């Protein structure tokens, strides 16, 4: 079999699992979970430094950006202006052009505002950013993002942090079929089997934060997701058997003792 490569724009990734770094008990747990997940891309947020805190533990001291790709996000941004400001600062900080755009439209559902999202994608692409876009599972909006130069489409499985799993398989499969750029499920995955299902459907990758960080044992769950994504991908590549409405015996019918 040809080696199964995963590439987003010009970046080769060893794992099809991307993990978030939020919600962990502390930075040490974050680092251990990232390691156990086998991911070599992590999402990170951009926030004000508490200048008066002398200790200031830094994410960069726990997860080395030279070894693991940082994917800065725009979490908490509700309009294009704030998102662009955040990502320009992120680029200045790390020098990386690959970013996760996420513009939320509503505090209760954290549902993406696609009008602002498409507007920002255009601007960012023009400025040379490689944009991975958190979006609704609407095939039309996903197509618009692709047409406007997005590097990857990241539809939600269910609302952020809900852990409900993939709620609209039909839409996700339509997006997979039409997209020429990677489709990565972002948000709403609850447990390892959800990730396997996404990968078996033909998603190129999954992005997981809460399902690992909020589990009872995040480090073990990180490993579970690593295996789940590999299993799902291999299953997709292998191609599942045909479904039958009735039983089809597994043992030969010939030679049964009578």
């Amino acid at each position: 079999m040809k080696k199964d490569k995963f590439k987003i724009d010009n970046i080769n990734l060893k794992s099809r699992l991307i993990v978030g770094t939020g919600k962990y008990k502390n930075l040490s747990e974050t680092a251990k979970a990232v390691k156990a997940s086998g991911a070599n891309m992590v999402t990170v947020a951009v926030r004000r430094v508490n200048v008066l805190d002398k200790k200031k533990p830094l994410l960069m001291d726990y997860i080395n950006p030279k070894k693991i790709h940082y994917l800065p996000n725009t979490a908490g941004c509700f309009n294009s202006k704030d998102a662009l400001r955040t990502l320009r600062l992120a680029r200045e900080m790390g020098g990386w052009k690959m970013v996760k755009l996420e513009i939320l439209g509503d505090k209760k559902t954290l549902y993406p505002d696609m009008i602002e999202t498409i507007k920002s994608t255009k601007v960012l692409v023009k400025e040379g950013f490689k944009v991975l876009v958190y979006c609704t599972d609407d095939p039309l909006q996903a197509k618009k993002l692709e047409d406007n130069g997005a590097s990857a489409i990241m539809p939600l499985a269910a609302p952020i942090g809900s852990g409900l799993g993939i709620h609209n398989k039909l839409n996700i499969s339509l997006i997979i079929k039409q997209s020429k750029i990677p489709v990565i499920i972002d948000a709403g995955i609850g447990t390892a089997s959800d990730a396997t299902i996404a990968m078996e459907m033909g998603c190129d990758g999954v992005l997981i934060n809460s399902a690992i960080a909020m589990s009872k044992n995040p480090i073990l769950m990180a490993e579970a997701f690593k295996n789940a994504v590999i299993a799902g991908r291999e299953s997709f590549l292998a191609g599942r058997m045909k479904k039958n409405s009735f039983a089809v015996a597994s043992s030969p019918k010939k030679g049964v003792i009578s």
Partner: protein
Amino acid sequence: MAKIQINGKKVSIENRASVFDILKKYKLNSTKVAIELNGIIVPRSLQKKKKLKNNDKIEVVQFIGGG
């Protein structure tokens, strides 16, 4: 002394201090943060040149855990 705001907090600084001086004062590693002065990004290469004046507003940001 000049009065400026860092991340929304009012502080007093030496006259003609640079952005870089402020990073030093608060023990911030310039390679691990990004700076905005009055809404405009100050590239790392200009941090020493950029002097601060009364009523300037600085934002200092870093990467933290996020999803």
